[in-house]
């Protein structure tokens, strides 16, 4: 009898626990995102303002490439574990649209009357005339510099390439032995989007839609040799390899680098960390060349998995539309540093308040229409590896400039042909 009572009590406890668990279960509308930890609380607050927020579960699921792997794996398993809304990188959207991974949003755009008129980068997320994603985050490669030191030492960040040499010599500091104690500029060489502007601003084609590249042309070789001279002289640090990103950030915050190139989405991160060290951050476009004044822009769109159950897609689109709406996105831009997705976002109250607090960011918003998106090719990731490895070998391992550039172009052509 005693034993029976114990069993009944245990069963009751288990039932209660199950009941509580189901009562605490989160909403079914699953939104996967890639935002770093420092932004997640604010993102949750934004989602909490959504009309059907109680139905929504917000989950950080790793970097955008990791999320894509999970979505593709879920597709193989029949779509059971798919999120309702997930981010897709601008370099992947056309491939995914072509391969039927992401949903065609045209019917929903028409049904809900979504205004795409001033949506930046909307063509990047379109394929064969149909919209497959709505622009969610935009990030442009920009220069961040130590504004405090700039004012103290009378240093001006260069607007054109011709001003680079003077700037680099002025902003670099060395000790008695000739070792650099403060680099004028730190290049993140581990990702190609940080340095494509170097070539585009001089009319060099890194790779086009047909797999052609002029990276081994005269102009490209001239630029590369110039940068190599500056690296060898200790004026520029070319970051590459394991730990390079953390090293660059630490160096900038510790004033061991006067300026760095980084994504605009890192603005708040640098602003907050520099403030703790007593420095202010300046923002600028990378120096213009003789052919263009551009920088690479990329970002993420929000998409709906094509294999998501049809009955869920309506809910999915409504959430997607909310997250990509002008006001919501502008609010997100204000706490992250991503650029707002609508061209007139900075004219809203939120936008004006943001620029009033961070006037430096106007330097980027003024040039947002001049920013360039990289070509979308199935083999583009492998092509970027070629560029990153090739330039690092030139700058850090003293590889022959022309020989290496020739090899890079051969490799790029081969990768393109292999992907057909």
């Amino acid at each position, binding site marked *: 009898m005693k034993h029976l009572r114990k069993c009944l009590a245990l069963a009751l406890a288990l039932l209660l626990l199950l009941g509580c668990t189901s009562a605490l279960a989160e909403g079914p509308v699953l939104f996967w995102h890639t935002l770093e930890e420092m932004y997640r609380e604010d993102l949750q607050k934004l989602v909490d303002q959504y009309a059907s927020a109680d139905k929504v579960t917000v989950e950080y699921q790793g970097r955008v490439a990791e999320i894509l792997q999970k979505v*593709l794996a879920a597709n193989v398993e029949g779509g059971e574990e798919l999120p309702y809304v997930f981010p897709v990188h601008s370099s992947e959207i056309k491939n995914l649209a072509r391969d039927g991974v992401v949903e065609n949003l045209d019917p929903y755009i028409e049904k809900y009357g979504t205004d795409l008129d001033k949506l930046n980068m909307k063509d990047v997320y379109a394929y064969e005339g149909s919209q497959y994603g709505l622009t969610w985050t935009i990030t442009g490669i920009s220069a961040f510099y130590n504004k405090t030191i700039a004012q103290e030492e009378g240093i001006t960040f260069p607007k054109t390439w011709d001003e680079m040499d003077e700037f680099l010599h002025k902003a670099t500091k060395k000790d008695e032995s000739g070792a650099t104690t403060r680099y004028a500029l730190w290049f993140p060489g581990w990702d190609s989007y940080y340095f494509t502007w170097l070539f585009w601003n001089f009319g060099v084609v890194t790779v086009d839609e047909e797999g052609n590249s002029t990276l081994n042309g005269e102009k490209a070789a001239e630029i590369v040799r110039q940068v190599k001279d500056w690296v060898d002289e200790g004026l520029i640090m070319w970051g590459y390899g*394991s730990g390079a990103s953390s090293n660059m950030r630490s160096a900038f915050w510790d004033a061991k680098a006067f300026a760095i190139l980084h994504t605009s989405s890192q603005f708040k991160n640098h602003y907050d960390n520099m403030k703790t060290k007593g420095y202010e951050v300046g923002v600028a476009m990378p120096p213009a060349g003789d052919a263009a004044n551009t920088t690479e822009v990329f970002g993420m769109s929000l998409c709906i998995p094509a*294999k998501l159950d049809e009955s869920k897609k309506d809910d999915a689109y409504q959430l997607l539309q909310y997250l990509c709406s002008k006001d919501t996105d502008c609010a997100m831009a204000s706490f992250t540093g991503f650029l707002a997705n609508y061209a007139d976002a900075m004219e809203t109250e939120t936008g004006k308040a943001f620029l009033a607090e961070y006037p430096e960011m106007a330097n980027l918003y003024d040039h947002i229409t001049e920013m360039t998106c990289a070509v979308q090719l199935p083999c583009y990731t492998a092509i970027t590896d070629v560029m990153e490895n090739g330039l690092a070998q030139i700058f850090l391992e003293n590889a022959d400039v022309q020989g290496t550039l020739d090899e890079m172009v051969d490799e790029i052509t081969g990768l393109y042909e292999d992907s057909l």
Partner: protein
Amino acid sequence: MSVQTKNAGLKHRRRAFDFLCTVPALVLFIVFTYYPIAELLRISLTDWNLSRSSYGYVGLKNYEWLFAGRGWGQFISSLKITGLYTLGEVTLTLVLGLLLAHLFDRMTRWFNFMRVAIIMPRYILVSSTALVFMWLYNDLYGVFNYFLSLFGAGPVRWLTSRDMALTSLVLFSGWRMAGYAMLIYLSAIKGISEQYLEAAEVDGANGWQKLLHIKLPLLAPTTLFLTVTTVVSSMKVFQAVDILTQGGPYKTTMVMVYQIYKLAFEDHRLDRASAEGFVFFLILLIFTAITMKWSNRNVSYDA
């Protein structure tokens, strides 16, 4: 019923019962070993791109790409890097393990503590230790370069130089595995008859000579066991590479498994990755078979 028939029936029932006892293990083996291998082979005969919803059978097209197309260069390169890494790790593990076992082959309290401390890295997650080593190896802020600077030596680009990256990986793995090898050698050393060592001492052999001429030959079966297991596990290295170098710099640490992973999950070419994976499986199988056959002839188990 005759006694013979009864006995035959009993024998059959016993055999059936014995077989039934092995079924759970057999099922696990089939599900987690044989089935994945069969699937690997099947997928390698398709054109499965992970980002596409359907695929078809294309025969040996992926093997053509691997042996006669663009895949050959990167396959051979990864195989070579994997071979070098394996050679380095196995050598370091065995040599360090043996020396440590010889050193700590005494039951004192201090040595007990040291044995535990040396074995511990093997049983801590690779990802955790690799993350720590990523910082120890850091070019600018790493502890190793800091200690070098105290002696006036310049910073070493442990993970970012083409000459050092693979060596740094080998050192990391050797540090992790040496404790395990030490443990195996310690128990094997305990099994060596004291008579041999006493006889050698009477003949005037010192510690080093006893190690080289008595212990080492008698530890041959243990060395073979450690070699085979370490080679096979070393050739499958992935986590350390994923965290420390991601196959770089300049693909100098692009080991086979990482190459297959990139092909499958970054390039989404599950078909080509499966072809490479299956060929790699065959290479490991042949290596193990040759090693076992060689050992049957050349390794004595008399100790």
